[in-house]
């Protein structure tokens, strides 16, 4: 009686063990890739930032002491916050429309959101440069409408950077918002209405709180992507908006100072990780699959 049972248990344990082995085998290529292409360079970067003919914290000391760096970090953070806010305001109605339209229209709206993804950031940035320049379409239209007499400075400053970056980053806001909104059961909205909640009240007390996971995920994503944005601000900022990413590239291209560039990169990475950790503690639901 006992023997077959014991045998069954053994084979169950065996199959469990081989399943585990298979699990790791399947994971191995991805793990190796991450280790070789991400962890190794990062370690190298971190070492480089503190090693110039011996251990030194000089690169980090300069980050703290020189006001140029503090200003650039402050500008980068402010711009990134603005990007989160702008894309949230623009993206929320788009995501709402996509989540509540009939399936045919939903495909169209999401398609329009995603199509720009297929064009390179460089091309889109140059396109904005053309549109926003002194003699560009936008300025001509503003003058034709009589809103302004002289061309408005829309490029080579922060306005241009904001407009172009908002356009490029919008999908990263819309898609998480859409994912969160799509999960909100229609019945809850009906329930709120039947219980006396007018459209605004229902939005404020039911819809908005339930879409918060998407708001947080989208905002963090856009914020973190903005922190490291390079091509667009370089092209449309005209050298006036010196972001952290440009400091890194300048330290390498102009001064051939890899140590300083590495130190800035490590500092930026630390900021990003801190923000992700903060977002995770503030809104655990945005990160876990289980909810409701």
């Amino acid at each position, binding site marked *: 009686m006992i023997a077959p049972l014991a045998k069954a248990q053994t084979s169950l344990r065996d199959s469990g063990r081989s399943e585990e082995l298979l699990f790791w085998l399947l994971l191995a290529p991805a793990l190796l890739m991450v280790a070789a292409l991400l962890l190794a360079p990062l370690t190298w970067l971190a070492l480089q930032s503190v090693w110039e003919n011996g251990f030194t914290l000089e690169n980090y000391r300069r980050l703290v002491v020189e006001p140029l760096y503090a200003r650039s970090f402050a500008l980068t953070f402010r711009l990134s916050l603005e990007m989160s806010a702008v894309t949230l305001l623009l993206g929320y109605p788009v995501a709402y429309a996509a989540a509540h339209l009939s399936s045919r229209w939903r495909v169209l709206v999401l398609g329009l959101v995603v199509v720009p993804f297929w064009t390179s950031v460089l091309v889109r940035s140059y396109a904005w440069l053309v549109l926003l320049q002194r003699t560009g379409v936008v300025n001509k239209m503003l003058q034709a409408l009589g809103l302004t007499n002289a061309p408005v400075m829309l490029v080579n400053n922060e306005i241009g950077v904001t407009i172009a970056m908002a356009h490029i980053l919008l999908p990263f806001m819309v898609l998480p918002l859409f994912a969160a909104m799509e999960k909100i*059961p229609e*019945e*809850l909205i*009906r*329930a*709120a*209405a*039947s*219980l*006396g*909640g*007018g*459209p605004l*009240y*229902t939005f404020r*007390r*039911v819809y908005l*709180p*339930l879409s918060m996971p998407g708001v947080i995920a989208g905002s963090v994503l856009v914020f973190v992507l903005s922190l490291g944005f390079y091509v667009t601000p370089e092209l449309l900022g005209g050298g006036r908006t010196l972001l952290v990413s440009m400091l890194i590239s300048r330290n390498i291209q102009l001064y051939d100072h890899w140590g300083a560039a590495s130190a800035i990169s490590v500092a930026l990475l630390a900021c990003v990780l801190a923000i992700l950790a903060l977002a995770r503690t503030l809104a655990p639901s945005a990160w876990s699959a289980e*909810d*409701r």
Partner: protein
Amino acid sequence: MLARTNDVVHDMTENASVGVSIRGLSVHYGAFRALDNVSLDIAPGEFMSLLGPSGSGKTSLLSILGGFAAPSAGSIWFGDADVTLTPPHRRGIGVVFQNYALFPHMTVGENVAFPLRARRIAKSAWRAEVRRALDLVELGGFEERSVAQLSGGQRQRVALARAIVFHPKLILMDEPLSALDKQLRESMQIELRALHGRLGATTVYVTHDQREALTMSNRIAVLKAGRLVQVDTPERLYENPQNRFVASFIGEATLVPVQRVGTDCVSIGSAVLRSTRSLPASGPLLIALQTEKLVVASPGGEAGLNLLSGVVADVIYQGESLRVFAQLEGGPVISFRQPSHHAGRGQIPQRGGAITLGLHPSDTIIVSAEDG
């Protein structure tokens, strides 16, 4: 704005209930008619069930009553007010949804307080109301619990408390018990019935479960393919189905074609059955043999009882009763229920054995074979 909402609340405490009048309601989706010229008057304080198979239009009707959908034609009246175009949040209806639709980001107390806060009632006033509503559904002290911590039955009670906390004159329930297990469902039916008695609000209850409808309702409206086929009290509906659909849908009946013999008699093969009811005037007829109305009779029979004879085709043991299938002389197989107690089992012969069944003339239900 403030004055208006306060007026509504004041109104609600004045009269406990409101009559509902559904007039010529139709809903078309292209060529498909979800509802086809439905008219129904529901008295103030009445418990009206909408009963029908899936796709019969009962949920469409509830959606229109709730204001979530607009009809293609017809109107809805609450008392003497036409509310056909009134948005849901101005209708003052308490709705209990099939899947409870509790707000997952709010506590039990916040869920129940929602209708009161939406009406801008001061916290000092709504606290007591929330406690009273939760006490009424036996969930006193659950205010701070999160919805995720509750069992299915408790969620159902919270949904109920939330729907009644603002003293609505009309309560709509969309299959509220369908997700509960059988025992809980049956005890909730009794509780809902008692709660309706205490609150006195007009209640419209959608269900596909006939027993649920029979247990709780003052009247039942049976729907089929978007039309009302019969509106009656539970007893009249069960005992006097007016057509073939109701006869087959309500209860557990076998429909067998019969021949007309005179004004109050029909025949199955050689057996002649007398009915105390009036037969449909014309057309082919069916007899609705409800399983519990047939009794095992001695071959000679008792006086006045209609007799059917046949052989036992199968016996299924189902706990409280046996379901016995019998093949009548002339072919048709019918079924009846026999209590599973000792005496009841003793009356059933072996499979293949001869059996005589008695049916009282007042239980002899004859309907038209034509649909409608």
